[in-house]
Each structure stands twice: as structure tokens, then as C-alpha cells.
């Protein structure tokens, strides 16, 4: 029987070690679980922009124009090859766009808010065809010159208008305008009736690609202005991640050592409780697909510091009970019972602050509130159930009998 309890006790400790190892270090080719957390923009680099939509002549800000603006932004984002963007409407007339890990976030933001009004105009300024008559726009390289260009295909209506105009105006100019800016002013050599045209003069294929994306997605019905913009370069993001991980490890090791040195055997058990705690918190965050931000990491490590509080409360009680001459088992029992309400009340108030923080906070502050809340619940759970169970197991297996090792 004694051997049985001892086996369970050591089995649990080994299990926790393996669990923690898998969480943070992984096994050879098996990636540690932490790698599956979604990193915030501040840790992997990226851009967060809030656009303010404003009306254009003949196009007021309403649900319909907002919706089509958002879907055009979505098209542009996807065609730029940006993965997992966040595009959200905020309030009535704002749009939030978050792009993570894109190499040129600044350029992306600019492309997103281009009005993209394409016009072909006669020398007199008469509109021949516009973006509405466009069926497709694709970038390519001229096989002879190697120069990048955008090939346009008009729809049936556009093909007819373009054909009619070019037939009547051979030898004259036809201006190509994008957002009111003259891109090119070629001379019409011959009538063009196949509905195809091209725009040349791009630096490289990338630039042509961006223009093609703009033309394909169509013109924005609303004017977008940048209200707020946060850009974190990829190097800074990686650096922040590295630094905060290092700081966390040092802080956590300090807690572990302190607990063992001060509380001896219970402290040793509390360390295992903390490993379980950290695994639960990160596991829940991965499951909730919560984003790990820099303040989030700070909140997480800080919650470790606070999570030991429940253990400290219990151990201090335990010591008192032992000093009063109780047996180990009954001291553990009453120590926990008496600490329970205290832990409950003190955690409940902190939870109130965290929940308010979540509902009123934005962005990273919210991430911090989520980590803090999960942390409070998890620390309550591990301290009350797991630490208690382990202490009883240890007491029953008589692995550590000397009350001195319990700090008494």
C-alpha cells in the first residue's frame, strides 16, 4: 500500500515533468506546444491600422458602401498574398486591418487604401472607358523587352466603346489615368477591337502586380484615411520575443528556487503545481486561439508570481497547524480548508478587475486581461486541487515524514 502511494506520487511528478517538457521544449522533431500559440503583431512584426471611411461625391457612408469597401480590401489583401489578415468593421465608419508577418507592411497599407479609379481619356478630356468596363487585369513580362506590364481585358461593353474610339481616332493620343494621375499617353496606331490594352513602364513585376490587383478589385466607393497605424518591423518583433522569453525564464527560475529554499518539501511540490499551472494557461490560450502579445507574456509571468500566492497562503497555514501539534495529515487537511476561503475571496476581486479590463480594453490590453483571467482561474484550480492531492499523496506514502521539511 505504501509502495502503491509512493509509485503514484512519483508517477505524477514524472508525468508533470514530461507534460511541461512537451509544452515548452518539445521532443526532438516534435515541436513544443508553445509554438502553436498565435503571436501578436508586436512579437512577429506586422501592421495594425484603423481606417476612417469618408464619403466620396455621390457615395455616402452607409452599410452598403462600407460592405463593398471591406470586400474590396479583402480582395486586395488576399491577392497581395497576405495570410490570415484580420479585417473588421469598427463602429459605423471605421475599418480595422491587421496584417502579420508581411515583409513590407507600409507598402501593403498604401495599396489597400488606393482609390484605384482607372480612366482612359481623349486629349479633350472625354471619358472613353473606365475601370467599370474592365474584365481583367494581369501583370506579365514582355518576352522581347523583359519589361513588366499590366495587360487589360475589357468586358463586352468596354470592348465596343474602346473599339469605336480607336477606330475613329488613329494617330491621336489616348491618356491612361489611375486615380487622376496620368500613367501613359500612347498614340493610337491602329483600331483595337479585341478589347485588349496594356500599361507599361513598371519598375518590376511586383509593382505591376500591385497595380493589377488594384485594377481587378475595382475602385473603392469610399475615401479611406488612416486614423491610427502601428507598425512593428519583423526584426524588432523577433527581438521582443527573444527578450521577453529570456526574462520570463529568469523570473520563473527565481520563483522556483525561492519556493524550494523557503518552503522545502511543500515548495518543491508547489513548483510542480506551477508547471501544471503554466501548461494549463498556455493550453487554454492555444485552444481559444488567443493571441500572445508582449503585455500578454508579461501578464502570464506575473500571474505565475501571483499563482504561487495561493500556495504560500496554504503552506503558511500548514506550518501553523503543524506547530500546534497536529499530525501531518490533519494539518494538511485543515490548512487547506482554512486557506480556501481566503484564496477564493482574494482571487474573486482580482478577477473582477481583469474582466472589466477585458471589456473596456483594446488590442494588447485585452490580451493581457485574457491571460490574467485564465491565470487566476487556473491558479485557483491547481492550488486547491493539485497541490492538495500531491501533499496528501506524499504524506500517505511517507516519503517525507519529518515535519521539519514542511517548514515546521
Amino acid at each position, binding site marked *: 500500500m505504501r509502495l502503491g502511494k509512493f509509485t503514484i506520487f512519483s508517477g505524477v511528478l514524472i508525468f508533470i515533468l514530461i507534460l511541461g517538457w512537451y509544452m515548452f521544449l518539445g521532443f526532438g522533431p516534435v515541436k513544443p506546444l508553445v509554438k502553436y500559440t498565435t503571436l501578436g503583431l508586436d512579437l512577429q512584426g506586422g501592421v495594425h491600422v484603423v481606417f476612417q471611411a469618408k464619403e466620396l461625391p455621390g457615395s455616402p457612408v452607409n452599410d452598403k458602401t462600407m460592405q463593398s469597401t471591406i470586400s474590396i480590401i479583402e480582395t486586395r489583401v488576399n491577392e497581395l498574398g497576405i495570410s490570415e489578415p484580420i479585417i473588421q468593421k469598427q463602429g459605423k465608419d471605421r475599418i480595422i486591418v491587421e496584417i502579420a508577418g508581411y515583409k513590407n507592411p507600409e507598402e501593403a497599407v498604401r495599396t489597400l487604401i488606393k482609390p484605384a479609379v482607372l480612366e482612359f481619356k481623349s486629349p479633350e478630356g472625354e471619358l472613353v472607358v473606365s475601370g467599370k468596363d474592365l474584365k481583367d487585369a494581369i501583370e506579365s513580362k514582355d518576352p522581347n523587352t523583359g519589361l513588366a506590364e499590366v495587360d487589360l481585358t475589357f468586358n463586352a461593353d468596354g470592348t465596343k466603346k474602346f473599339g469605336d474610339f480607336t477606330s475613329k481616332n488613329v494617330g491621336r493620343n489616348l491618356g491612361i489615368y489611375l486615380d487622376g494621375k496620368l500613367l501613359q499617353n500612347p498614340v493610337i496606331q491602329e483600331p483595337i477591337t479585341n478589347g485588349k490594352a496594356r500599361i507599361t513602364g513598371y519598375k518590376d513585376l511586383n509593382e505591376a502586380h500591385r497595380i493589377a490587383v488594384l485594377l481587378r478589385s475595382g475602385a473603392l466607393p469610399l475615401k479611406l484615411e488612416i486614423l491610427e497605424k502601428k507598425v512593428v518591423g519583423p526584426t524588432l518583433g523577433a527581438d521582443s520575443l527573444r527578450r521577453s522569453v529570456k526574462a520570463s525564464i529568469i523570473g520563473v527560475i527565481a520563483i522556483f528556487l525561492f519556493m524550494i529554499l523557503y518552503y522545502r518539501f511543500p515548495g518543491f511540490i508547489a513548483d510542480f503545481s506551477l508547471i501544471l499551472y503554466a501548461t494549463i494557461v498556455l493550453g487554454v490560450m492555444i485552444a481559444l486561439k488567443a493571441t500572445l502579445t508582449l503585455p500578454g507574456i508579461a501578464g502570464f509571468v506575473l500571474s505565475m508570481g501571483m499563482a504561487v500566492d495561493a500556495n504560500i497562503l496554504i503552506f503558511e497555514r500548514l506550518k501553523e497547524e503543524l506547530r500546534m501539534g497536529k499530525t501531518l495529515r490533519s494539518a494538511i487537511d485543515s490548512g487547506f480548508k482554512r486557506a480556501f476561503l*481566503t484564496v477564493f475571496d482574494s482571487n474573486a476581486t482580482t478577477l473582477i478587475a481583469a474582466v472589466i479590463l477585458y471589456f473596456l480594453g483594446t488590442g494588447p490590453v485585452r490580451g*493581457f486581461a485574457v491571460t490574467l483571467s485564465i491565470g487566476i482561474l487556473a491558479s485557483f484550480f491547481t492550488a486547491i486541487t493539485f497541490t492538495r492531492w500531491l501533499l496528501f499523496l506524499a504524506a500517505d506514502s511517507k516519503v517525507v515524514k519529518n515535519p521539519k521539511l514542511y517548514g515546521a
Partner: protein
Amino acid sequence: MFHIIKNRKYWYIISLLIIIPGIISLFLQGLNWGIDFTGGTILEVKFAKDVQSQDIRSIITQKGIKVSSIQQTSEGNYLIRTEELDTAKRDLLVKALENNLGKMDVLREDRIGGIVSRELLQKALLALLISSVLMLIYITFRFEFYFGVAAIIALLHDVFVTIGIFSIFQWEVDSSFVAAILTIIGYSINDTIVIFDRIRENLKYREKGEALEDLINKSLWQTMTRSINTVMTVIFVLVALLLFGGSSIKVFVTAMLIGVTSGAYSSIFNASPVWFDLKRMSSKGDNAKKQ
């Protein structure tokens, strides 16, 4: 054992010595609001070559852009704060710096308009208010009203100490400061409640003739080891974050460090003495009514 309650006027004086200069500073110079609140643009840049901050400043001001501060964060890295720049002005600034000072990487860029900032501040104050009220209700429900009042006074103490010190030293306040203040509130209350809990328990087993101040003093000493050890573990983490963490969480960690220390102090030296005084005054009131 040293009597904490009997010496309470000294603890009040120590608290006032920190809080009053802070409040005076708040009135005279206020807080150093970061662009999260005032609106503006921050660029964190890294120059390939060695550059001087005066050079950066003169190049930017030549372009007619108002610079509020230029701060070197590490070798070659600078934090440039300016008025809010639109895309065209931002490009003008980046180009001017590159043309004059050589290759440069933009590590981070924040641009925040005035409207967003005001919303943020309003929300922060609202959060502060709502959480205080809810915690007061919770404590009144679980303990009694005077415990709640004393706990709220202790947490306001910590908020004023933290805000005051940030005002005195004119350290910049950003949106993470708001998160820090709210966490401090949670932490401070947490600490106070553990002590109140002990007082409540001891009241149940109170011996006849035991003075309330002795009972509180006993409770404080019974929880002293816990109070110190708990704050120690949190401080370990905060110091590690301060020394080794990135520059962008510095405001948050500094605020937390001040608040947590103040929280540990106030829950021992302010909350229980205030509760004692409240109790004493109310029982005097009762006696007066009886007579």
C-alpha cells in the same frame, strides 16, 4: 511584538509624504502623456552608421516637422516622437533621414490620431470606476462595508502613489500604464483581503477583553510572512522583466513595480489601520446615540 496599529499615525505620515508631493506635481506639471493619448507619430529607427540625435533633430525640423523628442534606446537605435504625420509627411521624414544620415531601418512605427486617444482615456477612467465599485460591492457582500471602504482607500493609495511618482519624474505614460494601474488595483485588493480575512477569522475566536487593536495587530503579524513572500515572488518576475525584457514593456513593468510595492505596504500599514479607525469612529457614534 512591534505594534503596528498603535503606531499607525507614522504609517499614515509616510504614505502622505509620498502621495502629497505626487498630487502637487500632478497639479503643477501633470503627467507626461505619450502619443497613445495625445496623438502623434513615433518612429523607432536603426541607423547603419553612427549618428547624433542633434543631427536627426535638425534634419527633421528643416522639413517643417515638429519633433517632440528624440531618444537613443541602444546603439544606432533612436525613438523619434513627432506631431501626427500623414503618409506624405512620414515619407518625407524617412527620405530626408536616409539621404542625410545613410541607410536606416524603420523598426517600429506608431501613428495615433487625436480622436482615438480621447476614447482610450475615457475608457480607462470608466474601467477604474466600475472595477472599484464592483469590488466594493463584493467586499461588502462577503465581509462588511467598512472593510470595503478601507480596501478601496488602500487601493486608491496605490493608484495615487504610482501616478504621483510617474508625474514627479515625468515618465511617459502609455496605454499599458492603464493596464498596469488596473492590475495594481487587483493585486492590492488581493493582498488586503488576505489580511482582512485573518482579522475576520480572529474576531470569531476573540477572547474576552482582547482589544480590537491587539487583535488586528496579531492578525497582521500572523499574515506577515505570507505578505512578504508573495510580494517577493512578484518582484522577482518584475525585476527580471525590467532588466531583460524589451523596451516596450518598460512603462508597464515600472508602474507595476511601484504599485505592487505600494500595494504590499498599504495592505499592511494602511488598510487595517484605516479599518480600525473607521470602526472606532462608528462605535463612538453608536455610543453617542445611546447616551
